[in-house]
C-alpha cells in the first residue's frame, strides 16, 4: 500500500482529469501525462454520453426526429433545429413564408446570445471569479422568459417545423425583445469593466494557447476558435442561407490567436447578434407562418443533401441521404465542437495545467454535442 507512484520513463506521471470534473463542462475525460505541472501529452477520451442520435435519425420519421436536435447542444438548441429543418425543406422543396424566416432568425440570434452568456459565466467561473456567472445567468433569464412565452420551453425547444413554425409570436414578445436590447448593451458595458479590462483576467488569458491558422485549418475548427486566429469564415456570410443576406452585421475577427482573442470574438458576437435582432424586429413582415400547401407526409426524393448553419459553437452541418421513404437512409450531423476539441490534444503540450484548463474553457465545449 505504501508503494511509490509509478513513474514513467522521463519522470512523468499520468493525471486523469476524469469524466466527473468541475472544469470539463460535461463528461469529458482527459488523460494528461504531466511532468510536475507541465503537460507533456494529453489525450481526450470521449463517448461517455453517446446517445445514438444518428441511429435514431435512421429509425424515426422526419417529424419525429425534430426534438432530437435540441438535445444535442442544449445551450444553443434553436440553431441546430434550424439546420435540420433547412436541409429537409431543401430536399422536399417546401417554401417557407417570409415571416417565418424572420422569426426563425430572431429566435436563433436570441439563442446565440443566451448560449454565449452561459459560456461567459462558466468560463470566468473556471478562472475563479464566481460573480460574473450569476450576472450572466440573470441576463439570460430575460431571454429564457421571452422564449418560454412563445415556445413553451426554456432550454430544449421544439419550435421549428418543416415549412415554418409551431406557433406565432405576439406583441408581448416584440416589446420584451425591444426592451431587452438596451438592457443587454448596458450589461455588456458592465462585463467589459468587470472582466475584460481586469488586469488579473487579462494576465490569465493573454498569450495563452496560441493556435496558428494552419492548426485551425488542419482540424477544421470554426466559430471563435478560427476567428480568433484570423480566419474570416462565418457560414452566415460565406455560404448564406435563410434570410441572413438581408441583415447588416459584421463578423469579428482577431489576429492574436490567443485565448483573449477567442474571448473577444464571442463578446463581440453578442453585440452583432443584438444588431441582427434589432433589424429583424424592424423588418418583420406580416403573413402566415406555415405554407399554404404543406405535404402531409414528408418524403424527400432520393438524393444527397447538405446544409450548414452557423450555431453558437461553429459550423453545424446536416447531411441527409434519402432513399424516398419516410425515414432517412442516413442522417449525419457534423458537430463543430468535435473538431474544435481535438485541437486540445496537440495544442496543450508544454502548458501548465491551469492554462490548459483555461484554454479548454475558451474553446466553448459542450460534450453532449461531441458524443451525440
Amino acid at each position: 500500500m505504501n508503494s511509490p507512484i509509478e513513474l514513467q520513463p522521463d519522470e512523468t506521471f499520468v493525471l486523469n482529469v476524469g469524466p466527473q470534473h468541475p472544469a470539463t463542462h460535461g463528461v469529458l475525460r482527459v488523460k494528461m501525462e504531466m511532468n510536475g505541472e507541465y503537460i507533456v501529452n494529453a489525450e481526450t477520451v470521449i463517448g461517455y454520453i453517446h446517445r445514438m442520435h444518428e441511429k435514431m435519425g435512421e429509425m424515426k420519421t422526419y417529424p419525429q426526429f425534430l426534438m432530437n436536435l435540441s438535445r444535442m447542444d442544449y445551450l444553443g438548441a434553436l440553431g441546430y433545429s434550424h439546420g435540420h429543418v433547412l436541409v429537409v425543406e431543401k430536399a422536399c422543396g417546401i417554401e417557407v413564408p417570409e415571416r417565418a424566416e424572420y422569426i426563425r432568425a430572431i429566435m436563433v440570434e436570441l439563442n446565440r446570445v443566451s448560449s454565449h452568456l452561459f459560456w461567459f459565466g462558466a468560463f470566468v467561473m473556471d478562472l475563479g471569479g464566481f460573480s460574473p456567472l450569476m450576472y450572466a445567468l440573470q441576463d439570460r433569464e430575460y431571454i429564457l422568459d421571452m422564449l418560454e412565452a412563445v415556445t413553451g420551453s426554456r432550454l430544449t425547444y421544439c419550435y421549428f417545423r418543416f415549412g415554418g413554425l409551431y406557433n406565432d409570436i405576439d406583441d408581448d414578445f416584440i416589446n420584451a425583445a425591444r426592451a431587452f436590447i438596451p438592457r443587454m448593451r448596458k450589461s455588456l458595458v458592465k462585463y467589459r469593466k468587470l472582466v475584460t479590462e481586469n488586469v488579473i483576467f487579462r494576465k490569465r488569458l493573454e498569450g495563452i494557447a496560441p493556435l496558428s491558422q494552419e492548426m485551425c485549418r488542419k482540424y477544421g475548427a470554426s466559430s471563435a476558435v478560427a476567428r480568433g486566429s484570423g480566419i474570416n469564415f462565418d457560414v452566415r456570410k460565406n455560404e448564406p442561407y435563410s434570410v441572413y443576406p438581408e441583415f447588416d452585421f459584421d463578423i469579428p475577427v482577431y489576429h492574436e490567436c490567443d485565448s483573449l482573442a477567442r474571448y473577444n470574438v464571442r463578446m463581440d458576437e453578442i453585440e452583432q447578434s443584438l444588431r441582427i435582432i434589432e433589424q429583424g424586429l424592424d423588418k418583420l413582415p406580416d403573413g402566415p407562418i406555415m405554407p399554404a400547401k404543406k405535404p402531409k407526409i414528408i418524403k424527400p426524393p432520393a438524393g444527397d443533401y447538405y446544409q450548414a448553419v452557423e450555431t453558437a459553437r461553429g459550423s453545424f452541418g446536416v447531411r441527409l441521404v434519402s432513399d424516398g421513404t419516410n425515414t432517412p437512409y442516413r442522417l449525419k450531423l457534423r458537430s463543430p465542437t468535435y473538431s474544435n476539441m481535438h485541437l486540445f490534444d496537440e495544442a496543450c503540450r508544454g502548458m501548465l495545467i491551469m492554462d490548459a484548463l483555461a484554454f479548454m474553457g475558451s474553446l466553448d465545449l459542450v460534450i453532449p454535442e461531441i458524443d451525440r
Partner: protein
Amino acid sequence: MSLTLINVIAAVIIAIAFAALNAAYLVWAERRGAGRIQRRPGPNINGPLGLLQPPLDGIKLMAKQLTIPGGADKVLFIAAPVLAMFPAIMSFVTIPFSENIVAKNMDVGILMIFAFASMGGLSLLFAGWSSRNKYSMMSSVRAVSQAVAYEIPMLITTITVVMIAGTTNLMEIVHQQSGSFLHWNIFPLLGEGHNLLMPMSFLIFFTCTLAETNRAPFDLGEAESELVAGFHTEYGSMGFGLFFMAEYANIVIGSSMTTILFLGGWGCPFGLLPGVWWFLIKLYFLIATFIWIRWTFPRTTIYGLLNLSWKILIPLSLFNLLFTAGLLKVF
C-alpha cells in the same frame, strides 16, 4: 491563585472563544455577503437571517465519518489540521484589543505573531504530502511556494513600521498613533517618520495578508475548479472543518495586524465609543473588504502570483524601507 493568574487564564479563554466564534460566524458573513453581491439572499432558512447556519454546519461536519485514505501517512494526516488551527488561535494571545483588553502583552509581540504564521505553512505541506493524492501534492507545492514568497514583503513592510515606531511591542505602536485621525500610520503627513509612501506600504501589507491566508485572488491552494479542492481534498468531517476555521482565524489575525500597524488600533478619531469598539469596527471593515475582493476577481496563475511577489512587491517594499530609513536618519 493570584489575581493576575486568573486574569491571564480568563484572557486566554476569551481569546480562544473570540477566535472560534469569529471563525464560525465569518462563514455566515461571507456567505451572506457573497449572496448579496450576486443578487441572491444567501443562507436565510435556518434561524432568522440564517444565523443558525454555522452551528448546524458544525454539527453536520462532526457527524460525518473521519476517513483516512489507505496508504496515507497517518501521523502527518492527523497532525496537519491541528497544526493549521493551533498557531491561529495562539496568536490571539498577544493582540491588544484595547488599552486594557489584552491577554499578555509581550515586548516581542510582532515577532511572535509572525513566527506562528510561518508555522501555518507547515500544515499545508503535511496535508498535501500525507494525502497520497496527486492533486493534493501539486496544490500543496503551489501553496507552500506562495506562502514563502509572500512572507518576505510582509516582513519588510513590518520592519518599516517598526523602524518608525522604534519598538516591536504592539501596544507601543498603537500608542504612537494616538492623537488625531491623521496620526495613523497609513497617512503620510503627521506623525514622526511618516513619508509619502505610507499608503503604498499599506497596500503591500494588505496584498500580502491576502496571499498568506490563501484568499482569492490568490487561492491557488484550495478553492480550485481545476484541481478539485486542493490540498484538503482528502479531508472530510472535522479535518476539513479545522482547515476552514483556521483560514478564517488567520484572516482575523491578518486584519487585526493591519489595523494595529496602519490604522491606529483602537484609536478613536471622535471619541464617541470606548476603544475596543473602534478596533472591532476597523477589523470588520477590513474583513468585509477581504470578502468583497474574493467575490469580484478571478484567480491569478501561479507564475503571475510569484511574479507579483518577487518582481513587484519585494522591490517596492525594499525601496520603501530604504527611503524610510534614509528619511528617519536625516530628519
